[in-house]
């Protein structure tokens, strides 16, 4: 494992009975990044995260994590009969590196009472308590499985803001999964696309955006253009074609225009083409 990656998977695979949930997965999560793990439902996101935090044992390959890891499962499980104070005590007694002052301050800032029963809190408040328990472990890597699922828009915003505040304070690495791209566009700086149990894209989001263009022009010239650039996806009407391509800006015919892609277009284009891959070059993997 290199000094700059906090999580590394090599040939990782998990099989449930006959079906592979994840196969041949090799990736590295660079230190200090906020990594978005995206993919359709059933792509193996949860399986990958559970393997990373040691909840599951790999069928083949291995995954290694450096340093203290915290995990927030999708349902944000807490003991519903416990008070908030008892949830913090749970974290303190089970984690040597627990930062109790931070945990109490965060609960106080959220306007929550230490004596409230966890089971009586709203979904957003529960998510915040669960996030507090994860953050107060002072992890180097925080893994979150669909952290914003089942939250109303206001709670989504609050949870994301709390998370980003903690990242800014501590510089920890975050790996979070989601199938909602709009949640991630402004918060994450590294993208991993998982599709059908395999890693399709892994890279810096700014570099990915800069490395792809949408080229538009007449349909009858599209094939000629496609021979010059690496086309991920072609869409268009009977006369006008739009090619999402992995390319620098290139000189094209007068009837052609090109524009930058946005993250959502990019992800969707790769998801529709499971055979296309954009994985880091060896230099990027350790960058």
């Amino acid at each position: 494992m290199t000094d700059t990656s906090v999580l590394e998977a090599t040939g990782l695979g998990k099989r449930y009975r006959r079906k592979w949930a994840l196969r041949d997965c090799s990736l590295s999560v660079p230190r200090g990044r906020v990594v978005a793990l995206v993919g359709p439902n059933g792509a193996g996101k949860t399986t990958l995260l559970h393997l990373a935090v040691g909840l599951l044992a790999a069928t083949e390959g291995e995954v290694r994590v450096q340093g203290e890891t915290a995990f927030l499962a999708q349902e944000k499980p807490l003991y519903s009969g416990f008070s908030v104070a008892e949830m913090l005590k749970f974290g303190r007694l089970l984690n040597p590196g627990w930062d109790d002052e931070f945990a109490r301050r965060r609960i106080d800032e959220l306007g929550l009472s230490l004596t409230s029963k966890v089971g009586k809190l709203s979904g957003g408040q529960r998510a915040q308590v669960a996030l507090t328990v994860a953050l107060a472990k002072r992890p180097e890597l925080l893994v979150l499985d669909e952290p914003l699922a089942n939250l109303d828009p206001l709670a989504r915003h609050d949870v994301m803001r709390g998370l980003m505040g903690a990242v800014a304070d501590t510089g920890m690495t975050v790996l979070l999964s989601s199938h909602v791209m709009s949640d991630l566009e402004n918060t994450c700086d590294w993208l991993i696309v998982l599709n059908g149990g395999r890693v399709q894209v892994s890279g810096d989001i700014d570099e990915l955006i800069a490395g792809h263009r949408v080229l538009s022009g007449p349909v009858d010239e599209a094939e000629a253009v496609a021979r010059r650039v690496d086309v991920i996806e072609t869409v268009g009407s009977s006369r006008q074609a739009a090619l999402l391509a992995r390319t620098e800006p290139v000189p094209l015919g007068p009837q052609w225009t090109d524009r930058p892609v946005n993250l959502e277009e990019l992800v969707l284009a790769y998801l529709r083409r499971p055979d296309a891959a954009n994985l880091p070059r060896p230099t990027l993997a350790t960058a």
Partner: protein
Amino acid sequence: MYWLTYRQHRVQFVVTVAFLVVLGAVLLASASATAGADEEFMSLYPYLSSMPVLPIAVGVFWGAPLLAAEYERGTSRLAWTQSISRGRWLASKLGALGLLVTLAGLGFGLMIQAWLNAFPAVRTADRFGDMSFFAMTGVAPGAWWLFGFMLGTAAGAVIRKTLPAIAVTIAVFVLVLIGIFTNRGGYAEPVVVPADTAAGVPAGMILRPATLDGGTRAAYEMQPSDRYWRFQWTEAGILLTGTLLLTAGTVVAVRRRL
């Protein structure tokens, strides 16, 4: 970990202690009653003789939810992603709760024994000849309670749902109870004693009628009373072997599955 174990299971703990206190008070009152010993003994006997099934309650309330409720509520994913390992979590829980359950079973046994001691003249107040009292005195109740607890725990670990785990716990426990009660007489080679002596029926575990002297003399096939402790340890050994197997199964299930 001990705080967490107590916090999660304190209801079971409090109810069990309360049950033992109430039972102790009832037994004490009964033992110190001055009325006719036979009537006093028989007034409680029907209730006490059904108490070998108490470990079912231990399995249902202490054992089955221990892992199944964590799986059902998803809190296993919380508990097993803290700094302390899953193995240590399980060892602490099984160790602490198993010890408490065993002590409670042994305490229950001591109270039953003390109550039996108050009726020296009542012939049926026999800890060896009566199959219920055998399972509720000596070391047997500790082993029975621990076995019930681990049976429930293992069922919860494998099935991962509390209600079906409870059903399986009850069914398996009843089968084991019937199996052990019907085969207990075979823990040692029985002896044949004549039935027509002046002393009447000899003390001990009567198994079946037999004959002596070529079929001319009525006799009993039986286990004499002085084999009580040998039988106690045999029964405890059988149950503890079962408990160990169930513990191994629980560990395998917890390590393998999410």
